[in-house]
Structure formats: structure tokens, C-alpha cells
């Protein structure tokens, strides 16, 4: 889960990380007022969870409050990469001398958080993590000890970072680390950190990605969802503990296990079909969950056939069968349903479903082929 720039910046501020003077608004005429308060020039920035706002006209410079209002109104009526802009952030415009990129994330190989720092221009955020085997510009953080000041010194030292900003950099990195821990983040990025011509060290933009597994102890997480980004059903699915992603095809999928779901989608593609979604039932399946899953699928007008591919392990096929039975009783079978079941309690699962108007398939590949045939191969 990702936060908007203005949300991330509000957290940065709380953690003592210096940000430019700025305010967020959804109303263009308020932009004028804000620009007056801050003093011009200002930057007006679209708040959308998309890369490349700058090149899409999502970031504009305004030299007067009037210009700020105009820019805000322009951006707020825009769509950026298909996403409408709900809010703009108006920040003081700064003269920048030097730019840096800072990142705390998790290293899967070492199972440790790491802190990376680059001088901007030397590398782009999108490719930073690719610099896999280069240890020079990264510091591993012992999760049992946490980030220490000396580690920031080491990093600054390697980059010939100016001494006079070292204390500021240290506070920023320690703030990032504390935020990373407190919020159960998966990633905290600052891009750019700037040294301005008037010798301030400021964070101009940043990203925070949160760990959805921590939802049970991070209650605010739900408030930060950007509902606009989510397709219909994604919110409903999450409520029921389903992993659902809406896609463009017409074969609705209902699978258990993330790997198996991916393999099913791949198999559909290989057989010339187009999946309508990713839907992993996840752990702890009960009747309500299966009904909710089928409800989401059948409410998607693009779905022309439903492919159920279940392999029992932690999840038992009979539990799913009871769910399917109840769902079919409720919704009927106007949209054809194809079922493949294997593994734990597969036999009794099939027995439960055998009198219903559904198609059975002896294997996943067979089930996929049947589904593809129904929707016309394409």
C-alpha cells in the first residue's frame, strides 16, 4: 500500500524530517490563498499514485497566486495515467544546488533493512534497486539494533557529503528509520533530498509503502487507501480477506493459493484466453468467503465464464464446495462455471457439487481449455 506525496510528507514532518512549506487542497481557489501565504513562486503538484507526474503536466511552477490558482485548476481537471487528480500540493519553490535520493527498504537476501543513498543524476529511483551487487552506497541495518548514527556517517563519507549538512542528514535518516519501524513500512523513499541555494537541507518528495500484513496493528492503514486507484471489487475483496486484482479479460478466476492463481492465469494466457482477474481465496476459507468471491466475479460485466481451480492443502475442497453450492443457489448459473479440484478432500468436494449445473475438469489445463472454448477462444 502506497501513500501520496502529501501524506508521506505529513509523516515526514512528524518525524522531524524537514519539508518545504506547503499545503494540500482539492479546490483551485484555495491554491491562490495558499500561494499568498507561502509566498511565490510555488510549485503545484498533482497528488496521484503514478510515476512521471512531471512529464505528464502534473507539476507546474507558478510565479503568482493567480498563476497558482490557474495551475491548480488545470491539474485538478486532468487525468494522469488514467487516474483523476483529487488533490494538489502547493509547495514553496526552491533553488536547488544538489539533489540526493534516500531509500530504506528490505533486502530479501540478507533479511535486513537497508539504507541506500545516491546523488541524483547518478542513478534513477526506478533502477536504484537493480544495482544489486554494489555495496558501496548502501548500509545494512541490523533489525535487532536499528540504524545508528555512525552508519549514516559511513554512507555520507563514501558520497563525499558536505560535513556541514551531516547532522541534518543524520536526523533525516534516523527519522526515516523510526517512521519505517513505527509504521511497519516496506519502503520509505526520499527523492529528492535537496540542498538549496540558500543552504537548507529539505525533502522535496517522498514515498512510503506500507506492509499490509501489519494491518492488524496499524489501524490507520485503512484510512490511507486511495480508493480511486482501486477497481470495483478490490475493496470488497479485502474486507473478506480475498486477494483480488481486476484485469482486462473475460475468464473469471477463483483459485486458492497465490502461486496456483498465477499459474492458472499464465495457463489461460498460454491457451489464448484472457483472465478477468486474479482471485486468491487465501487462508481460512469459509462459506461466506466463497460467496463473497463469486459475488465479486459475477458482478463484473466482463466475466463470461468462471473458472474454479482448487487444490486442497491448508484449504479443504469440501469447505469450498459448500461455499460454491451456497453461491450457486443464490446467483444461479447463468454464467457457466467450470471446476477443477484436487488434493485434500477433493472427492467429497466434487460429491457435494455433482448435482449442480457446473462443468468438471480433470486437470487445470483441461479446465482452462474448456473456459477458453466457452468464451470463444478469442
Amino acid at each position, binding site marked *: 500500500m502506497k501513500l501520496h506525496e502529501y501524506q508521506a510528507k505529513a509523516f515526514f514532518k512528524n518525524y522531524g524530517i524537514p519539508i518545504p512549506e506547503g499545503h494540500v487542497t482539492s479546490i483551485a481557489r484555495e491554491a491562490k490563498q495558499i500561494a499568498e501565504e507561502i509566498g511565490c513562486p510555488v510549485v503545484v503538484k498533482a497528488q496521484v499514485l503514478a510515476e512521471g507526474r512531471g512529464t505528464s503536466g502534473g507539476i507546474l511552477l507558478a510565479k503568482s497566486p493567480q498563476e497558482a490558482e490557474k495551475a491548480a485548476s488545470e491539474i485538478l481537471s486532468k487525468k494522469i495515467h488514467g487516474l483523476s487528480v483529487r488533490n494538489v500540493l502547493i509547495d514553496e519553490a526552491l533553488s536547488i544546488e544538489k539533489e540526493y535520493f534516500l531509500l530504506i527498504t*528490505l533486502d*530479501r*537476501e540478507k*533479511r*535486513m*533493512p537497508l539504507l541506500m543513498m545516491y546523488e541524483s543524476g547518478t542513478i534513477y*529511483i*526506478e*533502477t*536504484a*534497486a*537493480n544495482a*544489486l551487487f554494489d555495496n558501496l552506497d548502501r548500509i545494512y541495518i*541490523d*533489525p*535487532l539494533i536499528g540504524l545508528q548514527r555512525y552508519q549514516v556517517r559511513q554512507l555520507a563519507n563514501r558520497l563525499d557529503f558536505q560535513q556541514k549538512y551531516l547532522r541534518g542528514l543524520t536526523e533525516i535518516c534516523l527519522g526515516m528509520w523510526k517512521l519505517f*519501524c513505527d509504521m*511497519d513500512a*516496506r519502503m520509505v523513499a526520499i527523492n529528492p533530498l535537496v540542498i538549496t541555494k540558500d543552504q537548507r537541507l529539505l525533502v522535496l518528495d517522498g514515498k512510503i509503502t506500507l*506492509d*499490509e*500484513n*501489519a494491518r*492488524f*496493528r496499524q489501524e490507520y492503514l485503512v484510512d490511507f487507501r486511495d480508493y480511486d486507484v482501486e477497481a470495483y471489487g478490490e475493496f470488497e475483496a479485502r474486507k473478506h480477506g480475498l*486477494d483480488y*486484482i481486476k*484485469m482486462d479479460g473475460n475468464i473469471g478466476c477463483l483459485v*486458492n*493459493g*497465490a*502461486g*496456483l*492463481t*498465477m*499459474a492458472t*492465469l*499464465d*495457463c*489461460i*494466457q*498460454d491457451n489464448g484466453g484472457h*483472465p478477468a482477474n*486474479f482471485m*486468491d481465496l*487465501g*487462508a*481460512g476459507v469459509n462459506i461466506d468467503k466463497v460467496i463473497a468471491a463469486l459475488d465479486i466475479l459475477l458482478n463484473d460485466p466482463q466475466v463470461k465464464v468462471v473458472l474454479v481451480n482448487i*487444490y*486442497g*492443502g*491448508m*484449504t*479443504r475442497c469440501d469447505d469450498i464446495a459448500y461455499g460454491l453450492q451456497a453461491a450457486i443457489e443464490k446467483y444461479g448459473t447463468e454464467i457457466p462455471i467450470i471446476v477443477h479440484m*484436487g*488434493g*485434500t478432500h477433493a472427492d467429497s468436494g466434487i460429491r457435494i457439487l455433482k448435482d449442480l449445473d457446473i462443468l468438471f475438469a480433470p*486437470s*487445470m*489445463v483441461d479446465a482452462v481449455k474448456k473456459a477458453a472454448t466457452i468464451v470463444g477462444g478469442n
Partner: protein
Amino acid sequence: MSILINKSTRVIVQGITGREGNFHARQMINYGTQVVAGVSPSHGGSWVLDEKVPVFDTMQAAVEVTEANASIIFVPARQATDALLEAADSGVELVVCITEGIPVQDIAKVYHYMKTKEVRFVGPNCSGIINPGEVKIGITPEDCVIAGKVGIISRSGTLSYMIMEAMKEQGIGVSTCIGIGGDILQGTSFVEAMEMFETDPYTERLLLIGEVGGLEEERAARFAAYQMSKPVAAFLAGKSAPPGKRMGHAGAYIEAGIGTLKSKIEAFDSAGVKVVTEIPELMKLLEK
């Protein structure tokens, strides 16, 4: 017999009074696993599974009484970190965590804590370990696999079951299948599991079942090329996965260009590891 576990492994089931824990404890016993105790806070003193398995309040008490050397965790995510640390402290040598949805920062801590205690940590969010026909510490359905010479390491539970079933239909058996789990951080990685298989006399060749996200498959490819003598094959899921979306598993996402299936396929290709993305193809590969 094969790696990590065998018939004399003495297992404690943490969360044995829960629905899943209870069900799979019975399955494991039926399969031949020595389930010597269960742990469930506030159920200590009772007996479960036809009054054959004693339940303790704490791992410490359970290990003291039963001399168990392995544990499997079914407790809910909210309590799982506590259960993991308790297991690490209890004196067992192997901890298999089935639980899904544990915060990743907790896993980082647990991993390093287990390391200082020299405990082998498998999972979380995994299917556990099975030595077909002999013993299992996990949730793999017993019917889906037969004993044989192929070692399997998988990020995905159900996908591995389906693949093993397809193998079974071809008469291809498995020495050990380790589910390493679908989370961002894994107690045991592909490479670490591969090291164990390399020296295991019961394993002749290896199958890796990977998916989008991270770079563990790329590391596995390098390891296969430079440090394995046994042949390795790979099946990968997620070629249709869109970037920026979490594909069910916490660890299965493409972000900032990292974690694409393309990169993984290239890595295996250039390491000389046969890699496929379709099950029929995989079966042809394994038949050889």
C-alpha cells in the same frame, strides 16, 4: 529419508487446539510423523487427537517433557511472532511456520534471532516439508506425491501440490519437498535449501518452483550454475502478472523493475537451468 526431517523427528504443533492446527496434526500423525505434543496457551494439561497428544501452555514445558526437536506453527498472524520467538527459545532445532500474514519487519527480527540460536527456520506462509512416504511437517496433502529422487523447493503451496500430483501421474517421485513460502522474507531461501539438497544422497535432481517478486530465483540460478553438481530445473509462475500489484503472496510483486519473470527466465537460461512456465512442458522436462 531425506533432508531436514525424518521418522525420528519429534514435533510440537504450536496452535494445536485451533481448527487448522488440529486438522493437520492429525494428518501428520496419520502420515507417520511423530507429533509428541501440542502447545496452546491456556489449554495446558489437556489431551487432544483421541487423547493421544498432550497439550502444554508453553513451548518450554513441552520441550522439557517430550524432548521434541522440531516445531510447526499454525497460530494466527497476530500471535505468530510471539510463537516464533518462543519456538526459537525452546531448544528445538527446526521451526516450520505455516501462518500467513505476519508483518515483514517481525520476520526480519525473528530470522536474525533464530540465527543467533542456530535454529533452522522454514517459512512463514509456506506448506512445510514432506519426505513422501515417510514423514511430513506441514500441510501438503498426502495423496498428491510419491517417493522418488526429485528434490523440490517451492514458494507456493498449492502450485507445488498440483505439480507433484502431475509428476505422480507420470510416476515421478520426490525425495523432499520444501515449501519456503511466499512472503517477502523467507527463513530458508532457495539457495540455502539447494545447499542442503546438493549433499543429500536421496536427491538426484532438483526442481525449483518460483514466481514473480524479488531476486531469489536469480540467486538460485547463479548458485545452480556455480555451486551445484546436480541438475536443476525451474518452473515459474506469474508471467501474466502486472507490475505494481501484489499477486496474493506478500512477496510476489514487481516494483521498480525488480521481480519480473523475464529477468528470472533470463537468469536461469544463462545459468544453463531448464526453465518452463507451463505444466505440460514441465512434465516433458521431468520425464527425461
